[in-house]
């Protein structure tokens, strides 16, 4: 019986659950992580979907992972290696392209070709956004205080927050205000004139949300994607060698090295509660594990409405969680390729294949793609963010062969008539047909394809409605409202029961911040 007793049980072996377990183990706690699937990582997994071809099946790039986690958990020592993913190329409808390269001079020269004014604005925009990322960094790194509470810890947090906002100065404060209230398209209109540039930038504002680039609030999502920091540089995106599963494996190794027990194929059925206190969990198998602390890395819906009998919770919290918006809007197409797509706008194989391709020729294009989703259809001509991991890490595919990772929006969870295998393949066809317009050899290059809709994402890795952020990064679901008012500080109304997933502040994107902050909360409460 004693081997079933722990100091803490973490439900869900996603990256946040693993981070949380690693920090608890680091503080000397006896921790077990329980993962439903046969492998750890949740949405950050690498799998050989087709023999010889490895995919970051769901999340596929890295930027937002907090540098303090990399440092404190010594992730490089545990196998994580970040490779540069420097460029973004947007094929245009007239056969030309727009490129943003890793080098400032090269990017300037390229942007200048399209708009001399934008070439300059680009540098100043980058400066302001990195100031913004720095401005929100302390907010991202803090346990959200409750602004309606008079508790000393909340007041301290609010004072700290107020002092920080005051220190920003007018230019930054006003920019932050705009980013919190505007649409990404409107915000970018203030900076740029070249449509495809605005479209490609605004695409960062729609990722993972059921909003169009013209929806207010999307500017915040844009900022969210600028918060990433690699080697001290904001807005740096990278590719993890071996795929994003390597990140999870490195965190898992860090947790294991500190004594955490990591169990796979151990689906949790329910939280054990007695007298309003968490006592442990019972697995689907009937096995019971005991611990005074149980942490859920699952999304808010599963954390509150599935693992727990709602009668254990205040009615208003149940109501808030029921209203918490998931509305998965993204799909993924993973391709095994016999050859690289040959883009008509940039013929041949080259350095451009080592960066991203963005199918975002205009803001109208993105907004139209959204329109279809708004009325329950997938976009016939969707937004796509495409990378070729085998061009960055040759180990991802057999020599001479390649893999492509295609992030697609919009692909609504609630499709008219519901998702069926045939509809899924029709969605996959729309993606391939659209991309083939830019790279005519694509269809003959495809050896295998895997199509994932939000319904598939939900079914495979448990993210409700397939939302990649465990709930939209909408303003009414951020900070002290994530996932619910009064319950944004990683605690739940059940004593000893905590939440640590991306449904909590500061949200998703393989940041790990929620897992770390939750561990801080748990350790401070003990």
């Amino acid at each position: 019986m004693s081997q079933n007793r722990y100091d803490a049980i973490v439900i869900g072996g996603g990256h946040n659950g693993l981070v949380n377990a690693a920090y608890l183990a680091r503080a000397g706690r006896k921790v077990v992580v329980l993962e439903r699937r046969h492998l750890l990582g949740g949405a950050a997994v690498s799998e050989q979907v087709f023999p010889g071809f490895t995919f970051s099946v769901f999340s596929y790039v890295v930027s937002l992972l907090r540098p303090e986690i990399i440092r404190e958990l010594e992730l490089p020592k545990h196998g994580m290696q970040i490779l540069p993913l420097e460029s973004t190329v947007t094929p245009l409808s007239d056969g030309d392209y727009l490129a943003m390269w890793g080098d400032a001079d090269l990017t300037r020269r390229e942007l200048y070709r399209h708009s001399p004014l934008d070439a300059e604005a680009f540098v100043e925009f980058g400066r302001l956004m990195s100031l913004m990322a720095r401005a929100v960094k302390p907010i991202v790194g803090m346990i959200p205080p409750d602004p309606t509470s008079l508790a000393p810890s909340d007041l301290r947090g609010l004072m700290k927050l107020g002092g920080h906002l005051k220190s920003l100065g007018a230019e930054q404060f006003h920019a932050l205000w705009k980013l919190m209230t505007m649409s990404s398209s409107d915000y970018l209109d203030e900076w740029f004139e070249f449509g495809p540039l605005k479209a490609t930038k605004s695409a960062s504002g729609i990722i993972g949300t059921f909003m169009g680039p013209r929806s207010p609030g999307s500017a915040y999502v844009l900022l969210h994607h600028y918060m990433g920091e690699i080697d001290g540089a904001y807005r740096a995106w990278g590719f993890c060698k071996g795929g994003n599963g390597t990140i999870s494996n490195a965190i898992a190794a860090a947790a294991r090295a500190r004594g955490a027990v990591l169990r796979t194929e151990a689906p949790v059925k329910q939280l054990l509660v007695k007298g309003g206190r968490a006592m442990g969990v019972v697995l689907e198998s009937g096995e019971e594990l005991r611990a005074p602390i149980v942490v859920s890395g699952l999304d808010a819906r599963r954390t509150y409405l599935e693992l727990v009998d709602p009668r254990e919770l205040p009615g208003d919290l149940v109501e808030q969680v029921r209203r918490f918006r998931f509305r998965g809007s993204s799909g993924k197409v993973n391709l095994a390729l016999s050859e690289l797509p040959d883009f008509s706008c940039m013929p041949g194989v080259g350095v451009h294949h080592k960066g991203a391709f963005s199918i975002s020729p205009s803001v109208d294009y993105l907004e139209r793609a959204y329109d279809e989703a708004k009325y329950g259809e997938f976009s016939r001509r969707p937004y796509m963010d495409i990378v070729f991991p085998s061009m960055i890490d040759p180990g991802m595919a057999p020599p001479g062969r390649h893999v492509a990772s295609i992030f697609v929006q919009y692909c609504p969870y609630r499709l008219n008539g519901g998702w069926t295998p045939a509809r899924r393949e029709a969605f996959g066809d729309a993606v391939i047909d659209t991309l083939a317009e830019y790279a005519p050899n694509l269809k003959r290059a495809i050896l295998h394809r895997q199509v994932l809709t939000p319904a598939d994402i939900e079914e495979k890795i448990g993210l409700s409605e397939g939302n990649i952020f465990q709930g939209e990064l909408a303003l009414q679901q951020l900070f002290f409202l994530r996932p619910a008012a009064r319950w944004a500080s990683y605690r739940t109304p059940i004593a000893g029961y905590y939440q640590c997933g991306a449904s909590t502040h500061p949200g998703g994107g393989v940041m790990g911040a929620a897992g770390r902050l939750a561990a801080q909360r748990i350790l401070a409460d003990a």
Partner: protein
Amino acid sequence: MRVPHRLKTTPFYARTAPLMQGQNWRRWAGYAAASCYEFTHDREYAAVRNAAALFDVTPLHKYLVSGRDATRLLDRVVTRNVPKTQPHQVIYMGWCDARGKLIDDGTITRLGEQAYRMTSAEPNLRWLHRNAWGMEVRIEEVSERLGALALQGPLARDVLNAAAAEPVDGLKYFRMMDNRIAGVAIQISRTGYTGDLGYELWVPEEGALAVWDAVVAAGRDYGLMPAGIWALDVARIEAGLVMLDVDYHSAHRAMIEAQKSSPFELSLDWSVTLDKAPFNGRRALVAEKARGPAWRFVGIEVDWNSFERLYQDADLTPCLPMIAWRASVPLYRGGRQVGYASSGVWSPLLKKYLALAHVEAPHFAPDTPVEIEMTVEHRRLRANAWVRKLPFFDPPRKKA
């Protein structure tokens, strides 16, 4: 690819590339620019002060501003009185943001009644556009189309007289003339970045090689040498000329307030005319002038004896920086840091170790003794130095 993955090259590249002995290329505004053509820059620098040197300064940003409101626009942007400039006059100045902090510095040449050419170190097209709202003005970037050569040194006039269709004897300091070299219509301004007698040649791209060849041929009898940035850097420090991104940061690029500088803080007072029509930063500059600047940009001369002693103590002979350094080096007075040097070099002409520095009030008065940090054999030490008035070198021939 429509934009090759290469640095840009200037219209003179076909001539400069074969001169390059040590592959000493560097970046300048997205162009490949020569640090020096020979293996070291000694002779290239000597040519600046002894004969004549030819620099390819095409990477400067260049804008043509014309139209009914051209004068109004520029007068609103820069700190000097543009309406008062004469046709064919050149003025040097900076331009500020609304808080009176410098964005960039450069020259404006009045080409006609309502036609100007503006040069800058960084791109400023967007800033000009943002200030031109509601004005009838045409702003055209000619950076790539217009090659630029700087012909600098005591014999520069002789070289030009030998090369150009019209003599340049009558061309006064900071004036411009139309001329022809090798049949190519060019403009020659008596300007430069060396603090010496010198000219800048504004050459249409298509005539670039012909002009280069003619100038080089004419210069053969006068010891003319093509020269790179290393030589230019020594000369501009001797001349006390400030450099963007080295000695100061643009208000548009600075990440914090403390990284910004006003024209007063850069000792460019002479280029600020407060009693003219309203211009960007005027209000802040008026207030700053009233209270006095918190910083000044000054010369620093290192005390040789003190400098030598630091090396003697380590059993070494002094190691002189022949290539100018571009770094932030602390300055102290009375044990407290009172500023920082931003560039420094050994002056082979003046036989002095010189630096350009930002010094806080009240330590910036000429001849104030300070200490400058030096690293000698891995140890951070301090040498005695003095604040000096700029420029260090100002020969009569510059304006004569």
